[in-house]
């Protein structure tokens, strides 16, 4: 790999919520056209880390750099304006709002002039339906429908389609495949590859080794808020990655323990 400049970089970042220390001394770089897989056990701090990148939280210590320049995002809007789009682990859609209004929440297209600018419902609906259909959800054909009537996976697809549409430089996906069917999950992986091909930096959080192996160029494993391993594609085997994702425990011995348990207490 040549020495490219990272798009986004975290340097010695700590994050605490009052007395609770969640992230310790995080050093991380994301490059253009590269997928960084962020792995780790539940509660390891993955969501907290990406929320810090997305401007939801501010680092307690340390600094962030974008294109080599120090940045501080005081609110999510500031990160968005720099081209960072995020699909958070939870939420992201509003059940009692239409698909078009959901898609453009916070970045509404308008028509008209001066103080009489009105929400351009037609354009919003057209773009939203088109982007969601491109995502393989062809059942959605009316942008006026309320999101509450969609399935969980369809809503997730809507949130991802939205981020892909707005993400200019960095795309952050926090467990995007958790609610998805096999077909839609495969599609998300294709989207990730496509975003990478277009030169975006992608941060991808998942609990599934298969998904991580399929798209990751670079892997970072968080254990209790610190980076425990940082390696590139091909440097570690599938089993080693699985062990690290389980928080450093040996999966093989874990499986053996489960087997032994099942043999001791066979199902009646």
């Amino acid at each position, binding site marked *: 790999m040549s020495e490219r400049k990272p798009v986004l970089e975290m340097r010695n970042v700590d994050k605490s919520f009052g007395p609770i220390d969640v992230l310790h001394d995080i050093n991380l770089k994301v490059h253009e056209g590269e997928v960084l897989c962020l792995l780790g056990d539940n509660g390891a701090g993955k969501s907290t880390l990406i929320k810090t990148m997305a401007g939801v939280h501010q680092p307690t210590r340390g600094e962030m750099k974008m294109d080599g320049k120090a940045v501080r995002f005081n609110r999510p809007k500031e990160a968005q304006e720099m081209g960072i789009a995020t699909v958070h682990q939870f*939420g992201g859609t509003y059940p009692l709002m239409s698909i078009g209004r959901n898609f453009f929440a916070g970045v509404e297209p308008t028509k008209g002039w001066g103080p009489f600018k009105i929400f351009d419902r037609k354009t919003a609906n057209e773009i939203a339906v088109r982007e969601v259909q491109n995502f393989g959800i062809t059942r959605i054909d009316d942008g006026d429908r309320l999101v509450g009537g969609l399935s969980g996976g369809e809503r997730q697809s809507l949130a991802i389609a939205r981020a892909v549409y707005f993400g200019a430089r960095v795309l952050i996906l926090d467990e995007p495949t958790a609610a998805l069917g096999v077909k839609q999950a495969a599609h998300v992986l294709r989207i990730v590859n496509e975003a990478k091909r277009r030169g975006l930096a992608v941060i991808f959080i998942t609990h599934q080794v298969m998904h991580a192996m399929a798209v990751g160029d670079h892997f970072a494993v968080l254990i209790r808020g610190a980076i425990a391993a940082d390696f590139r594609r091909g440097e570690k085997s599938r089993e080693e990655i699985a062990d690290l994702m389980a928080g450093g425990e040996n999966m093989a011995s874990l499986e053996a323990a489960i087997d032994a348990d099942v043999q001791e207490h066979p199902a009646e």
Partner: protein
Amino acid sequence: MLNIFRRPEAGAAAGFILIFIFFSVFGWEKNFLTPLGASTWLNFASKVGIMAIPVGFLMIAGELDISVGALIPAGGIVLAMATGLFGLNIWAGIALSFCVAGFIGYINGMLVTRTQVPSLIVTLATLFVVAGLNAYISKQLAGTTQHSLKDVGPISEFLMGDYHSLIFGDGDSKITIFRSLQSSFFIWIGFAAVCFFVLHLSPWGNWIFAMGGDQDSARNAGIPTSRLKIALFMLSAMAAAMVGMTEAVLANTASTTTQFGMIFNTIICVVVGGVLLTGGFGTVTGTVLGTLTFGIVFQGINFTTFDKDLNMLFIGVLLLVAVLMNDTFRNLATSASTAKKKK
């Protein structure tokens, strides 16, 4: 064809039509429907209505504001003291009254957004604080809780507190469009039109809905949730002050009496109007229809032969029916996605 029933205002509209027909029939004898009779309930509705719309905005955004009960008298006495005690011009008095109300709304908003204390509790506290200040400051400065208004000119009276009629011709060929409608009615309709634009046409409306639908997601989507919420609290406080001022100009006096009843009235109008108590859903048209329904039930009983004491019971039943109906309509609206739309 069924789509009209899927419109979010459908429940409020159905309720309004039913109540309207009911009272038109039972109140016919006593002139419920004559221009003068209609003005009774329209004038009453307009005062609740001016507050119901911004309180409805807050409810859509997931918050409540009950401090309006003390802001109505505050609006009136600030205007009265500014003109009477300090000799200010009436327009300066009106501006000052709005500023005071806006400041109290700002405090409500800051407390709610900074502390995460539920807005019910925060505004309950400010309700009593402001009520106390109304009485205390009044007595300390003016030595009374009853102030008379000074410097009301023809323009300010016309705009804020007068009776208006529109009658063509006279004698037998006389056509009455409306008669004895208070200025507050026209303020209400104008304000409703502006609020309709804000909630349903401008991008801000989308922010309010998103904030009530999922506060964290809205913030993550870059919507300035705190600032927006503070602005909404300021709006409802200023609307309450507006009501207080129209009452003061109309009666030429302002009193410090806290209007606890109006707190319930606004909330009833908003809920009957189809706004979801838990936030994220509601319309201005629905709120206006809910207010009209409430006005009819509250005042309409006087036009019927029913005992007056029954109006509370009526309102209670109305509220329950409205909430149940709104649930049904809302489910219809969300399930619309599974029904195939005919092209």
